[in-house]
């Protein structure tokens, strides 16, 4: 404001017309982050606690507002029944898919969870996309506070091996959080983008991404800014969580034999023991022996865990990741020796055995320069820059991880788009009727590599409706299956006899309907708006305080007394108006009044500056 600086130079019109900023978000199983592209380099955005990692944990206190992040993680210890963690593993799945998983979680699953899991927490029911949305909303707010502007568009990362339903669920989470998801980008690919900024321009790289809940490997060819994925493989149910569960089981058995007490029914104790084994796991990344330390009801459990024993325990898990890597190499038509660079991503790659295994397989020293917890979010920010046009010399060509097919006679799957096809990709197929006058044709779409429909993942059933009633076999309906750049399927159909668009009704096998998502959005979106407004009001008041204080101080200056009375009155009037608006909650009005005061006090500021300049000149010349 002019009290401080004469040429404020604020060009409001330019600011308004600038396109909204797109942030990059890593919505992780354990932790989540948000990053943005700052001039040329991506940067992670810290929250109000100064930390950029937001634990992907949401506490739903009974009768209270949900709490996200570190505070929710603490709640895990005293209110585990109402605290959700690792929700990403439940995304796009039904209760039957994750029965084993749910048995380990201290959560209650509500009835009707066949297609979407409904967790009964805090006296309400929430779905995994809603849990994800709370985490996303927290990240959105962190970004808004940090950047000082509303954030409405984002790139969100997903495991490369996520299927259609899991991707859709992630997109739904974004919508519920009030974010327009411009792109879902695969995590290993994002990591490659983050590294690609300052790495050699051409070569073949493998990204080994072992996170909290998922494992992915992708092999990419880099040339002149083009990141072309050759093949991807993975397991959406393999991660650090599995190591924790393994250690937890061992410790529970150990305690049972030592204390003669089975703690597995005691949710609180189990959560504290989980924390203890996780701490030991983390310690083993740097020291050769760690101790699992746990107390309960006056009893002490201390268990030495040497790294060799830990390595033995997790060998089968690490072997599964290596099998994925070999399959990926084969799909890419490459041998390990043909890989120029290896990039490690995800917290689980801190485990020495994992690093050793990756080094041995690819015969290369893996890159770890970038923080494995941050690299995915940084890459998402680069992709955000590509989409917003800020980055013009890079482009990502990704693939679909799973083959897409339709069920044919005898429950056999006919593949239409093969895995590792560059996306967007499409296929067309002609359908006809089997009976005279038949009006509907049902198409069952699946994802997976197996021959039989029952062994693949059901994606959706598409009902071609209102077909012109003709003789059997005469109808000609052309159906187009399109996998977009997010890896999400779109289906459209045309009646080739009439050339008309054919109606298609979609019944997704898993996930929320559009209407359900819509209902969830409005609720949380309103709140997000409110939150945003509240923050704006608070921030504007802080600004107003500064200006009022500055003007107050200026009124002690000689320049004030030299002002014409009319100008003094105008300033006092403007102060009064600002003070009046100050206590309202209309931040736009406060800003207007601030500007009015700024305008009224311009003359005062100028003469103050002039006398300051004169004083300074005097000082240099005379003394």
């Amino acid at each position, binding site marked *: 404001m002019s009290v401080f600086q004469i040429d404020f130079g604020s060009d409001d019109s330019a600011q308004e017309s600038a396109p909204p900023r797109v942030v990059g978000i890593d919505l992780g199983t354990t932790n989540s982050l948000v990053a943005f592209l700052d001039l040329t380099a991506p940067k992670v955005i810290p929250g109000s606690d100064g930390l950029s990692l937001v634990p992907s944990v949401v506490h739903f206190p009974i009768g209270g507002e949900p709490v996200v992040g570190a505070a929710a993680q603490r709640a895990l210890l005293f209110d585990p029944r109402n605290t959700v963690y690792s929700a990403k593993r439940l995304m796009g799945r039904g209760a039957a898919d994750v029965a084993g998983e749910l048995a380990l979680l201290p959560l209650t699953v509500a009835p009707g969870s066949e297609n979407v899991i409904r967790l009964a927490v805090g006296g309400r029911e929430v779905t995994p996309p809603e849990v994800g949305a709370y985490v996303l909303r927290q990240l959105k707010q962190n970004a808004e506070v940090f950047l000082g502007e509303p954030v409405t568009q984002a790139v969100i990362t997903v495991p490369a091996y996520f299927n259609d339903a899991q991707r859709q669920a992630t997109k739904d989470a974004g919508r519920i959080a009030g974010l327009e998801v411009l792109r879902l980008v695969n995590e290993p690919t994002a990591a490659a983008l983050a590294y690609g900024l300052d790495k050699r321009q051409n070569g073949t790289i493998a990204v080994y991404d072992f996170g909290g809940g998922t494992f992915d490997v992708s092999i990419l060819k880099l040339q002149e800014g*083009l990141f072309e994925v050759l093949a991807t493989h993975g397991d959406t149910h393999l991660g650090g969580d599995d190591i924790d569960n393994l250690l937890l089981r061992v410790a529970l058995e150990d305690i049972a034999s030592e204390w003669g007490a089975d703690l597995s029914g005691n949710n609180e104790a189990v959560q504290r023991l989980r924390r203890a084994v996780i701490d030991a796991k983390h310690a083993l990344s740097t020291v050769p022996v760690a101790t699992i330390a746990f107390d309960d009801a006056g009893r002490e459990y201390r268990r030495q865990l040497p790294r060799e024993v830990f390595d033995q325990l997790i060998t089968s898990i690490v072997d599964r990741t290596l099998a994925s890597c070999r399959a990926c190499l084969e799909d890419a038509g490459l041998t390990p020796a043909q890989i120029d660079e290896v990039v490690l991503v995800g917290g689980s790659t801190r485990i020495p055995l994992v690093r050793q295994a990756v080094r041995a397989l690819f015969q290369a020293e893996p890159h770890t320069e970038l923080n494995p917890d941050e690299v995915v979010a940084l890459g998402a920010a680069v992709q955000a820059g590509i989409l917003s*046009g800020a980055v013009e010399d890079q482009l*990502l060509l990704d693939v679909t991880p799973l083959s897409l097919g339709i069920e044919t006679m005898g429950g056999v799957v006919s593949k239409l788009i093969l895995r590792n096809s560059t996306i*967007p990709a*499409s*296929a067309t197929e002609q359908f006809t009727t089997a009976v005279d006058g038949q009006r509907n044709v049902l198409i069952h779409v699946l994802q997976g590599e197996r021959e039989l429909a029952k062994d693949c993942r059901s994606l959706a059933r598409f009902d071609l409706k209102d077909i012109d009633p003709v003789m059997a076999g005469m109808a000609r309906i052309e159906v187009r299956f399109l996998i977009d750049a997010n890896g999400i399927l779109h289906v459209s159909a045309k009646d080739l006899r009439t050339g008309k668009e054919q109606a298609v009704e979609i019944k997704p096998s898993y996930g929320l309907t559009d209407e359900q998502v819509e209902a969830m959005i409005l609720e949380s979106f309103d709140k997000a708006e409110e939150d945003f407004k509240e923050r704006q009001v608070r921030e504007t008041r802080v600004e107003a305080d500064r200006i009022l204080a500055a003007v107050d101080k200026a009124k002690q200056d000689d320049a004030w007394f030299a002002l014409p009375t009319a100008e003094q009155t105008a300033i006092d009037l403007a102060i009064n108006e600002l003070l009046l608006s100050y206590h309202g909650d209309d931040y736009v009005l406060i800003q207007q009044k601030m500007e009015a005061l700024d305008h009224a006090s311009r003359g005062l500021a100028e003469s103050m500056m002039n006398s300051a300049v004169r004083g300074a000149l005097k000082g240099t010349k005379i003394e």
Partner: protein
Amino acid sequence: MSSLPADYFAVFGISPSLALDLPELQRQFYVLSKQFHPDRFARASAAEQQYALDFTSLLNDAWRVLRDPQARGEYLLKSNGFEAGDSRSNPPPSELLEEVFELNMALEELRHGDGEARGAIASALERFLAMREALDADRDALFVRYDANREPETLRQLRALLNRRRYIENLVRDAQQALS
């Protein structure tokens, strides 16, 4: 909005032909990707976004098919009214009957734990690989001939050759799977 290219060849601005300069095609693929990928149109109008999506999926489909000689040949046959036919449901080419019979026997023995069958499978695999190599040379010659004469008779010969090659490809795959 301009309309989409009529076929996979038109995407690359070439007329339907079989002997292709793959490195040049790949260069074109990258140039077109950089120009039309949906990422370049994230803030464009809905119509432009749709065109970018449609064009790029067509481009990807085209590159996937045209870079693979078998798929390219089958695509051209199909667009000329020849159905390639699924070799899996067709009977094996008669001159291969004996070979296939022996391979199936060996595969069966291996499944029942007879390790000695591996030798028979390995030598069968070697013969199939040699047949595939010979077929590839014949195919490439047919490709060049078709581009020069554009005769249906050449396409008929090509169809027979591609069906045979696809069948041998399946044998190679089965033998390799059994040995790995």
